[in-house]
Structure formats: C-alpha cells, structure tokens
C-alpha cells in the first residue's frame, strides 16, 4: 500500500497568506464558512480542492463538510471562471421572456455547458437567479457589463464585443 506518506498540498505563498487572512478576519469560526467561501471565491474566481483543504484546516473542520457546502450551493464553483464570465438570468421574469432560448444559443455559440469554460479560457457559462433588472428581461451579464432584452439572434453580436 502506498498510503503511508503524508499528503502534501502545494499552494503559492501569497495564496496561503490570503486564505489565512480571510479565515482570521472571520475569527477562524466554522460557522462563518459560507462567508469565508464567498470571499475566497471572489478572489480566486473558483474554489479548487487545495483551497478547500486549507480553509478546512484553518476553520478546524473536516474538508468533507467544506466540500459538502461548496457542492450544495450553486453559487460556489470548483471550475475556474473564464476571462469573461457569462451569466444568464433564469429568474421568473427572464425565464418567461425566453431566457432558456438565450441560454441555448450561448451554449451553441460557445460550445460549452453551464459550469464549463471554453478551452481558450475566455468564456465561462453560468446561470443566476434575478439580478433585479426584471424590466430588462431577459438579462445577461458578461463580466461587469449588463445586457437587457437579449434575444437569441443578438447573442453572436454580444459575444463579438469580447472576442
């Protein structure tokens, strides 16, 4: 058996310091796990396994529990985001105004599914629930930029802005 060695996880020094600082900002309190995950994902764009291991160690809880929370909430992701993350609102208003068709068009144009990244790392695709701009439904966000009343026919044009 080859399980007798301890497991070493490599992380960049500044990443280790960042995660430790975030945990310490929340008093290394395991009840603050969701807040810690939010801050960490905001920084890294996603939550890779090594990062979850370190958070678990810092909050003195099992990494299985951390992973349980990461996989329960759809907001958290273990896949790196693209340079331009594409988020399609599928909240009620957007949904009834045809968000599903818009989403399908993005899938087709980018050749990826929700939760994936294009091979060149440029675009990633996700769904979110209501950005509070229901008057503009259906709404799409790319990075910080918001697009309203998006029709499937407009998808190619929107994407060309970022290519």
């Amino acid at each position, binding site marked *: *058996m080859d*399980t*007798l*060695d*301890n*497991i*070493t*996880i*490599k*992380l*960049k*020094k500044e990443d*280790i310091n960042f995660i430790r600082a975030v945990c310490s900002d929340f008093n290394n309190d395991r009840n603050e796990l969701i807040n810690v995950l939010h801050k960490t994902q905001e920084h890294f764009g996603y939550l890779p*396994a090594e990062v*979850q*291991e*370190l958070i*678990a*160690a810092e909050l003195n*809880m*099992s*990494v*299985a*529990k*951390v*992973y*349980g929370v990461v*996989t*329960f909430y759809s907001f958290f992701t273990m896949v790196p985001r693209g340079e331009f993350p594409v988020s399609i609102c599928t909240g009620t208003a957007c949904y009834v105004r045809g968000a599903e068709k818009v989403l399908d068009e993005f899938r087709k144009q980018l050749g990826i599914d929700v939760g994936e990244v294009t091979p060149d790392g440029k675009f990633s695709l996700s769904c979110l629930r209501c950005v509070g701009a229901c008057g503009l439904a259906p709404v799409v966000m790319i990075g910080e930029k918001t697009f309203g009343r998006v029709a499937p026919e407009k998808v190619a044009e929107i994407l060309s802005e970022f290519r």
Partner: protein
Amino acid sequence: MTEKKQHITLTIDQHQVSVLEGTTVLEAAKKVGIDIPTLCHMKLHDMGIENKPAGCRVCVVEVEGRKNLAPSCVTLATEGMKIRTNSVRVLNARQTVLELILSDHPADCLVCIKSGNCDLQSMAQRFNIRNITYKGEQSTYREDFSPSVIREMDKCIMCRRCEMMCNQVQTVGALSGVNRGFMAVVSPAFEQDLQDSVCTFCGQCVAVCPTGALTEVNHTSDVIKSLADPRKTVIVQTAPAVRAALGEAFGLEPGTLVTGKLVSALKELGFEYVFDTDFAADLTIMEEGTEFLNRLNDFFSGNEKANLPILTSCCPAWVNFFEKQFPELKDIPSTARSPQQMFGAVAKNWFAKKIGVKREDLIVVSIMPCLAKKYECQRDEFKSNGDPDVNYVLTTRELARLIQLANIDFMALPDGEFDSPMGESTGAGVIFGTTGGVIEAAVRTAYELQTGKTLEKVDFEQLRGMEGLRHATIDFDGVPVHIGIAHGLGNARRLLESIQRGECNFHAIEIMSCPGGCIGGGGQPLHHGKSKILKARMAAIYREDSGKKLRKSHENPDIIRLYEEFLGKPLSHKAHELLHTNYFDRQVNFLEEN
C-alpha cells in the same frame, strides 16, 4: 441549579401518557406500547448517540390542530397534545414516503448482502408494500472499494446515520452529505475514494447503515480457496469479542458465550490449527506492560520529561486516527503491535518453523469483530518480502455466513478446545474485547511486576463501564497510578486535546475506536440501534474472564514458554523486531510553492 422538568400529559391514540418535558412524541408513544416506525432515526441511549435528522418522514403522526403531519422523532410532547399514530391519513403518508424511497432504490434484494438484515426491507414488509407505484429517476453511483469498507451508494437512502457516526461520534470527518437532489450522496471530500480520505476504517458507518450501501470487504472466498489448497497449512486466530457476539447470528440471546462452538466450527471448516488471539493479547500485555513500567519508572526516578502518558496501540482504527489527525503525538502510543499482528508475526516466524512449514505456505486467518483489521494486515510494516504476517481477516458476520455456507449446524456443535501452542490464554486476554479491558489486563500484570506482590483481587471495577470517558487511580502499593479510558474516537479526541493543552496527568490511557470497544466493532452482528446488546456482550466478556483459571497475562504458560524458547524477555531485540512497530505522519500538510 437546573430547573425541575415539568410533567406533561398528552393523548396518543386511545392512551393518556404522562412524560417529562423535552420528551419526543416517539418516546412518549413507546411508553404506552405504541411502536411508531422509524428509519433514519437511531438512538444508542447509553452512549449518547442519537441520529434524528427527521429526513425520512417515516415516523410522521397527526397532531390535532396542526395542518401538516409531524415527524415524531423530533416533535416534542406538549401539554394536552392529541396524537394519532395510525389514522388513514398517517398510514397513507407513510406508505407514500416509503414507496418514494423504494422507487430510487435498486430492487436487487435477492442478491444483496444485507437481505434479511436490512431496515429498509423490513420496513417494506411491515408496511405491506407489494407494489411500487412510482417510477422515476434511479440515481446511480460508482462503487468505492477500500481495504475494509465497500460503498455502494446506489443503495443509500440518505438517512445520514453514517455521517452522524463519522462526524459527531467518531469526529473523523471522512463523510459528509454532498451535492443536491438526485445527485446528493454521502461521500468523502471531492468524492475521492474512502482510502484517500481521513477514514480510519473503524467501520462504525457500516455498523449503523440500514441498507446495503455500506458493507465490509468480503474475504470469504479467499479463505475457502486457501482451505482447499493442499500445499497450504491454514491456521486461524479468533479475537475475544467474537465469542461474545457470534451466537446472535444463529438466533442466540445477545451475550451468549459460544467459545467452544466457535472452536469446533473452525475445526469443521478445515483449519488445521485453531488458535486464540487472546494468547496474543497476553503477549501484548507482556510487551506493552513492560514498556509502560519502564516509562513509569523513568518518571518516578525523577525524569520530568519521561514519555508519559503511554497510550494503548491495539486498535488499528485508533492508530489511523492519530496518524492522520494527531501526528504530533505519534511518539506517545506504545510501540507494541496489536494482538492480531503479534499473533501473525509469531505464527510466521516461530510456529511455521516449529511445524516445518515455509512461511509462504502458512496461511494465517483472523476472525475479528473489526473492519480496520482488514486494512491493518495489509500495512507494509507487517509484511516480510511481500508476505503478510496475517493473510486474511474475516469479520464475525462473514464467519457466521461461512459456517452456514459449509452446512455446519452451529447449534449442534460440541464445545471444542483451542490448539497448542498458541491457544492458551488468561482472563486478561479475554477482556481485551471490551472498553477498559486492555488497561485492566495491563494493570493486573504491571502491578505484580512492579510491586512483587500478588493481587488479592484481580477485578478492577473502577475501570469498567460504558461511560465514554472514564478515569481511575490505582494504588500501586502506595504509588498512585492515574488511568484514563476512552472509547469512541470522539472521546479519544477530547483526551488527546487535553494532552496537547497539557491538562492531562494520566500515566496510561486506553483508547478503543468503537463505542463499547471491540464488542461494538464494525464487523459484529448488527445491533440495529439496541445498546442493550452491547451491554450483554460486555457482561459475557467479563463472565468468560471470571471463569478462567488464570487471569493474569504473565501467568500464561504458553507465553512463558514462548519467551523461554524464542523471544528471550519482553522488549528483547527479537521482541522489538517482531512485536513492535512505528507510526507515520499521515496528515495533510501545506507547502509553499516556489
């Protein structure tokens, strides 16, 4: 002062019942003979173990004045409450709930290892379900094989008992509920294999799994093949806790000792020599007890840095636990191997020569109450040129099935006797099977070796019991020796943390991973949440001890002979080589990348 709890009177079906504040409807109903069915709920009262996520909804009841049905396992009784446990509405709801669970469960009961012993199956029978009306998603999941435990999560009903055991009771933290909806599963982090997680293989998840989702790795066919191989000499050792539980698999009352029948059954199965792990337990006491006395005398002679407390090392899940979670303490447990591995080392290096068999042709089989033993015998330290000291481990459950498979009428068997020279044992070896037993056995020998006096009374009642954390002070002829005992890894963690904080003044600590010690091991017949079964097994172990002529390990004539013929004296060079081991740091650590 705690406030006195009020009495509450409520009506359940036709019965009036008075209970204390804080009682659940489920418990109140039990008081008047109403057995509300439960599936996810599990309570081991004496050990403070309770699982009530109210997830399965099988235990719902009607509460007058409430719109929705209430899960009785978490609904507290209130004054004047009126409960219906068997109205048409309740019965329909329960049936629907169970059918929905069954609709996402593989219908392979005929070939499932849990068949006949499965809580879900008995529930389907009890509810008289003859047809599953619902057709829908069938979640599937890859199988995960570790050295000890098999996970077949297709069969998981998300009762979360395993998760409760792994996290609350054992504080191992290998398992957690992950993902959502039909994708939801109880799994290690990142859905990695159990073997790559912090799992200790204690098997308590298997012991409480209501279905066939978590089971033991089965080595029965390997053993059958070895027994049939004319080139092999196959010998067997059987652990103390097995004799106190095997009878349950044949319908005997919990706590029935079947030592003699067990020996006969093993002979019927074709083992050439039937030996006793109790013999190796006595050997463990010689080594571990001597090590303890050396460290203790080091301390009493003024060395403040003496390596104390000494921690027992018989339990392989406990070894995994401190290697993975407390590696900084890896130098304080005794270096003595477990009785299973001491037996294997002596068998392959001494007994094999004695009977003129090459070590590779001697097959050593263990019958153990434990799943971690399956892993332990595969550790590299316990192999010689790739040949393991112990070849196969069968659990008590596997042995029961093997006996049935071999057409042996267990109940009709006469009482057999263990073979020589590794079958003689003392009462001290027997009590290894229960919490507090190893340390009591060590005290019996250490006391006499240290003081040169004979113990008038060998029973140390102050070391016995079911409490998770216990301590006692034993008078070594004027010198107080402080003993700590923990069973269940959660209690072990509490003890280890107090050692780390420097708050602990124990000289010796016994730790067993499973609640109750080996009698509650993950390989034993299932207790289905009944803690009186564990108590009955414990009583049986002490009964076997008090019935023995010899009750102190150092008086075992076979042990005395083994030292004379082969090992020299405890902690000799030979003893170190064969009977001791070392531990590894297996914790996750973080390295700065350049």
